[in-house]
Each structure stands twice: as structure tokens, then as C-alpha cells.
């Protein structure tokens, strides 16, 4: 039997994924605290690969991994050609536009400046609303941008809203909900259909 490779997002989603795989009796070889990047499960013939979220999609699309566990935010941000076969249910949060409290977001005659680490999602969203914007791409601590005057608003993932609150920001508009997804390479889906199907069935049982 061939190995199945699963690329998993490092970080919070990766942790939860390891718990879920352990619950269905598969993830025993994963040791989150180790510095190893590949965990081999010889018994079940599964390789788990821990990589950065954006790279999960790249790994799966190029067939280096058959399956991937990654947040919907990444799937939306990165235009990709993969199947999204299951909603894992964890890693729930939402995309939102946030800004400073009690302050007009921007004056009417100016372009709305939006700071985000998700430029594609942001562009699509405001295009739909027919709002002209200027995107300022940041790689973290997005909440800082409106405070220091770098942008009028931000577009970011909100889980509890605590970071926003602590920085005096509030949600102006909720965009959409996201959660962790199981993605699948299109060709692996064909060649390893039964095994992938069985895995999804096990995950479904767990949820019920």
C-alpha cells in the first residue's frame, strides 16, 4: 500500500489537527513539541508534514501531499486548484473589517486605506461593495496600523475579539466565517479515493 501524505498548518490548527487525528486512532506518530517536520506512521501508512499555512496549499496542489489541513482563510487568499472535501469544524473564527472607535473611518474624498495580511480577500470584498481602497499589506500585528495612522481600517481574522478590544478597535463589519478544511489534491483524489474516503468517514463519525 502506498503512503498517504497529509500537510498540516503549523500553529493552532496544527495542534487541533493532531488531537483530531489521535482521536480517530491515526495521529499517534505526531509529536507537536518535537522539532521534526515529518512524522511517519508506518502502521497506517501515513506521513504527516508540518508546514507554514500558505505552503499547505502549495504542497497539496503540487501533489507532494495528498491531503492538507488548512484554514479557509488561506484557501481564499491563495487562488488554488484543489478539492475541498471536508469542513473539520475547528479553528473557527471570522473575517472582519475593524477600525477605531468613535472615529469616522475616512474622509469622503479620500481613498479608504486598508491594512491586512490578506490582500486578495480584501480586494475581492471591497470590489464587490464597489468601494475604492488602497491596500497596505502587513505581515502581522495588523491592529497597530489604524493606531499609528498607517491605515483607516483593517481586515483581519477575529477569534475572540480580545486583541481588537485591547487596542481600542471594534468590528465595523463582519465579512464571513471560516474554519479548518481538509483539502485534497485532484489527482490523489482519483488514485487514492478509497483511503481518502475512509478517512473522511472516520472524521465524520467523530463529529456526530
Amino acid at each position: 500500500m502506498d503512503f498517504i501524505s497529509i500537510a498540516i498548518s503549523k500553529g493552532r490548527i496544527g495542534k487541533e489537527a493532531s488531537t483530531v487525528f489521535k482521536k480517530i486512532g491515526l495521529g499517534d506518530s505526531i509529536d507537536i513539541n518535537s522539532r521534526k517536520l515529518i512524522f511517519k506512521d508506518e502502521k497506517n501508512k501515513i506521513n504527516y508534514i508540518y508546514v507554514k499555512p500558505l505552503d499547505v496549499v502549495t504542497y497539496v496542489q503540487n501533489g507532494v501531499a495528498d491531503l492538507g489541513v488548512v484554514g479557509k482563510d488561506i484557501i481564499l487568499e491563495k487562488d488554488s486548484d484543489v478539492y475541498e472535501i471536508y469542513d473539520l469544524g475547528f479553528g473557527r473564527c471570522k473575517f472582519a473589517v475593524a477600525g477605531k472607535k468613535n472615529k469616522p473611518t475616512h474622509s469622503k474624498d479620500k481613498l479608504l486605506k486598508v491594512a491586512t495580511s490578506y490582500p486578495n480577500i480584501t480586494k475581492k470584498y471591497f470590489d464587490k461593495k464597489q468601494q475604492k481602497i488602497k491596500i497596505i499589506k502587513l505581515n502581522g500585528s495588523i491592529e497597530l496600523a489604524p493606531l499609528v495612522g498607517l491605515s483607516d481600517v483593517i481586515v483581519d481574522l477575529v477569534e475572540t475579539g480580545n486583541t481588537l478590544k485591547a487596542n481600542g478597535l471594534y468590528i465595523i463589519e463582519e465579512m464571513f466565517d471560516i474554519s479548518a478544511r481538509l483539502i485534497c489534491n485532484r489527482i490523489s483524489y482519483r488514485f487514492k479515493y478509497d483511503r481518502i474516503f475512509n478517512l473522511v468517514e472516520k472524521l465524520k463519525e467523530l463529529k456526530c
Partner: protein
Amino acid sequence: MEYLKIKDEIKYHNQKYKIKREIEDVFIEEGYFYIEPSLYENLDGLESFYKKIGKDSLVKIINGNSDVVALRPDNTTNIIKNIIPKWKQGMQLKLFYNSSIFRNVNNSNIEEIKQLGIEYLGGFDFKSDIEVIVLALNILNKFNDKFIMEISNSKYIYGLLEDMNIDKIQEKQLKNIIYRKNKFEMLDYIKKLNLPSKIIDCLANIFEFQGNISQVVKRAEKFYTNKIMEKALEELIILGDFIKKEGYSKYICFDLSMITELDYYDGVIFKGYYPNSFKEIIKGGRYDSFTEYFGEKVSAIGFSVELDEIVNIINTRG
């Protein structure tokens, strides 16, 4: 690190040339004649067929008359456009081409995709379906005997959409979700569309309509069908029988939820894959109504072969 030497590069080119010749020989043996598509494509009115690949991915240039034209984004359109207006009833044409198509990929790089392919025009529907699919199977079998061909009939989903009364944007969205086999989001999305429960049930189970032909028919029959969808299934059953006779059954996977990149197919559609490659090796289908767009409805079916991808898998195999 050792970099590519001239010798290696020439070796690679020649290997590619050899494979190209091999495939061309098969085409010629089967009675296909060579045709050369033109490099430019006038886009007027053709945008709707490139919906899925998106306007951004067309490589556009401005010619001397300030018209915007595209470097050919696919070969079939180009060939059909030139031939159909001169079509005479009763003609039968078997054509093959060997030419690149061009697409914009991420970060504004232009990708040149080398394709070989055939178009069978004016054939008898079933006979040409089978002939073309068997030819595709033979080519797949030539380079690796572990392959899978996915087959469906685009009339199935088309028929289902017909009875939904949704607008073009919703249709595109729904097709996108089906393409990504995203059952979860689909269930969510169709709730909003106010569809009859019979159609919802059918959509909710559409990803299970795959396997061998009898499995697929058995599963799909339990759910909503209309005349168009029934016809689609009937055609697939006949096709399944013929494939069985050719001894290729074990390589085939029927999948009614199949969606194609180009939107002009209206009949059998198919894609061929190899296990060690991550792109379609062969893709094609029937597109009679596309010819109608250029003046006359002609029986038409064809496929293209990704040459570079075949060379790659042969190289990785060593």
C-alpha cells in the same frame, strides 16, 4: 551544484521531440490530418467560454489597429472558428494539431503549454465518441499502464441546472463549488437558492455518483432526473459497454460531478491522469453546440494531450 549542460538540454529537447513524434504517428495512423492553428485569437464574443479560466489568465496584446487580441488560449476554438464557416454538409474531418497555448499565471508570468490534440468533426455521434475515447486511452496506455480516465457527460449537470431557475452568477458560483467537490459549502449555498427539495437532494449526493458505470447509474437513478439528465446517463451506459469491450473498464472512473475548465462542452467529457503526475495528461469532450456558435451545428469531439507533462513523468521514472 552542477548546472544544466548544453548536452543535457539537447537531450531533453530530443526526448520531447521523440515523444511528440510517437503521438503524432498514432494520430496519422488513425487517419488524422495536420492543421496549424493561428497564434492570435480575436476575443469578440468568446469571453463567456473562458469563464472558468478567467479573463485575467488570457495573454492579451494590442495589434496595429489597436484591437485587443489574445495569444491563443486554446487550440479547439481556433480551429473550429476557421473551419465551421466553410463547412459543407456530410463532410467528415479528422484533424490533429501540435501547438502551444498561452496563459497568464500567478505574478504575471506567461506560461506556454505545449499541446498535441485531435478534433473529429462531422462523425457519427456514438461512433466518434468511442473512437476518440479509445484513441485517448491508447495514448495514455502507451506511456504508463497505471492511469485513470475520468468520464462524465456534461449534459447531466447542465440538465440539473436547467431546472433550477438561477441566474448566471449563481450558476457560475455553484459550478465552482461542484468543481472543488466542496459538499459543505454547497449545502450551505443551495439553501439560499430556494430550490425544490428533490433538486437539493440530488445536489447533496452528487459527489457520490462516481465509480463504475453500473454503480453510478444505480446511485444517480434514485435522485432527481429530467429528460436531459436521463439522456446523459443513457449515453454513458452505452459508452461504458463499449469501453468494456475494448478491455479498458478497469481504468475508467465515471464521475457525474465532473466540471470542465472550458465551458463549451455538451456531451461526453473526459480527463486522463497518471499517478506520478499532478496535472491532467489528457482532457477533452464533445462540443457540438460550440460549433453552432460559428454558424453550423456539426458533430464535434476532441481532446488535447499535455506534452510537457508526459516528458516529465518519463524523466522522473528514470
